[in-house]
């Protein structure tokens, strides 16, 4: 069924993000970050932990958006279409967790801007791609830019 495909795809995107962080960005940051308050290996574990929390929050938001728009929002009344504000609001939890992560990650002397960048990527990409590509049909163009991405389905 369509929603099985969509939900699986959203989870898959989050899974890919986690793997990307663990096997690509973490080794990259090992070479870039210096002056961490603890040993770099231990510091990277903190980084990986937060990136997984961010990706997890992003996944929860994306799944919540999907559940609401597939089973909760009904379009018997055309004026209730759109729901872009709801979609925009659901970005808030990942952003909030990102802020917390930024505050609670011990600052290193160099490379922190990259760390923060990857935190934002971990928080936003799964949510954005998951919703822009796999929102239910009635709301498939609610995510900004989804009309271009979903031109073919």
């Amino acid at each position, binding site marked *: 069924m369509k929603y099985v495909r969509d939900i699986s795809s959203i989870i898959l995107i989050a899974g890919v993000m986690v793997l990307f962080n663990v096997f690509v960005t973490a080794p990259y940051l090992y070479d870039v970050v210096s002056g961490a308050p603890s040993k770099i290996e231990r510091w990277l574990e903190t980084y990986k932990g937060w990136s997984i929390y961010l990706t997890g929050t992003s996944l929860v938001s994306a799944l919540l958006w999907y559940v609401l728009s597939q089973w909760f929002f*009904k*379009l*018997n*009344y*055309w*004026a209730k*279409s*759109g729901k*872009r504000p709801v979609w925009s609001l659901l970005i808030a939890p990942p952003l909030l967790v990102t802020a917390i992560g930024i505050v609670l990650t011990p600052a290193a002397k160099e490379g922190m801007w990259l760390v923060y960048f990857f935190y934002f990527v971990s928080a936003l990409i799964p949510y954005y791609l998951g919703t822009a590509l796999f929102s*239910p*049909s*009635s*709301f*498939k*163009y*609610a995510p900004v830019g*989804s*009309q271009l991405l979903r031109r073919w389905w």
Partner: protein
Amino acid sequence: MAYYAIGIGGTGAKCIESLIHLCAAGLMPEPAREQAKELHVMFVDPDQGNGTLDRAQRVLQEYSTCRRVAAGGIDLFKTPVTVAVPDVWSPFAQETDPKLEDFYEHNTLESTTPNVAHLFDVLFSHQERDTPLGKGFRGHPAIGAAVLADTVDFGSVEPWMTLRSKVAQDAQSGEQAKIILFGSIFGGTGASGLPTIARLIKKELAKSKVTANYEISAVTMLPYFSFEQKNDDEMRAQAENFLINTQAALKYYARPYYLDVFDSLYVLGDHVLSPLGPSLRKLRDSGDQIDPKGGKDQLNEPHFLELYAALAAIDFFKAVSAKGVNMIARKEKGVHAWYDVPPVFRRTELLDKLDQLTRFAFAYDCTYFPTLESIATRGRPFRAPWYLNLFEGDDFVELSESLKNELLKMRDYIRDFLAWEASLQSTAKEVEMQLFNINTFAIKTTIDAKETYVLRNPDGFLVEEFANLLLPKGTQNPFALSNLWERMSDAKIDDVQARGVGRFINVLYQQCKTERYFESPTFGKEDSHAQ
């Protein structure tokens, strides 16, 4: 083969209106749009200002406009309908205040042929000679027959000339032409016009050496409505005379010679005369309430028997050659349901197509048209994925222009269609009608102490009942309209003939298809027809 439908009088116009709605639903015989045969329509009425005729003309014009939308190979509006020019023929086209004695130049007859004048005086009373006939033959078919016999001219008067040449062309090319006339048997225009015009057509075709490859039929309506009588001395149709007039007319038809002109004859009536009369036209979106008094708004509401008349026409168009005498009757005296409708189609086909068109009309009026209006004025098209796919895809549509033209005409038509259904469900009295679930899109109101139904404003439609617009109700699905939006958002169009706005119409119509009547546990098991 082409089909020809002639509506005589107000009842004839109402029957034509019903036939046009069935054409819109794709119920004419040919299975596919490219095979659809043309339906040629004309009206005969001395009273060109009556509201019933006005409504039929309006529906015809809307149908023609909607049909021009390139909606591809769907059944919606599949039949090409051509309208005669002029669409309404009156024997008094050139007269401003026609009277019978002027028509026969009574004054001249008195001086030139007094015997003929005296015969004229014997046949027609002073009132019949002197009453203005601009509003019809006033329930006096003898007047109508005399006038029509003298004025129908296939040689020099339109639209008779074109009718004759088209029928002759069809017949001579080997295509069979089918001509059907609609009219009442108890009034003035229909009662006089039906046998007279049929006979004149047959005579004229014989003169043109056309004696085969055409058939003539008639749907003659027995009394089925009444109206409030005005008590004055003016000559007018009297409802209390309907039954006597009918008895006299049927005796006339029963004589063998008088039926020879018809290849088949459909006779319809109801044992209860439903009171009709002043009614509202459907409310437009502006919310204006039209004053029911006044000639233009003196409408007779559609009656379910006119649906039967339209079905009779389709039966005639479909039949190879009708034989024998067939009777139909209602199963239960106080109830009228779909199982009482004559089996012109596989029974599910009629309901499937009417249900599809009703759903289309409902969804278009309460959801899709308002959405398009909102997008045109406020933007934010992302709210409607189907809009972006169908209007801003490969075949870009200028929405603002379309909303003033094709989309608006479509809305006008579908509101007339819904109003017609509301009337069919509500006008028959002393019988429980089980045809349409009209409370979903119409509301009962009282005008001048008379109960009538008017269309709701689109935002007042009962959307949770979208799955049950025809009776009996099936499985409840309060989110059927929401499910339609979802299907529309994903729908792709394969029909290369659909272009512009027609792509949207094509997809919406197709997505409104239902075959629930196959699943109904009770439908199709009752059979009320007697042979």
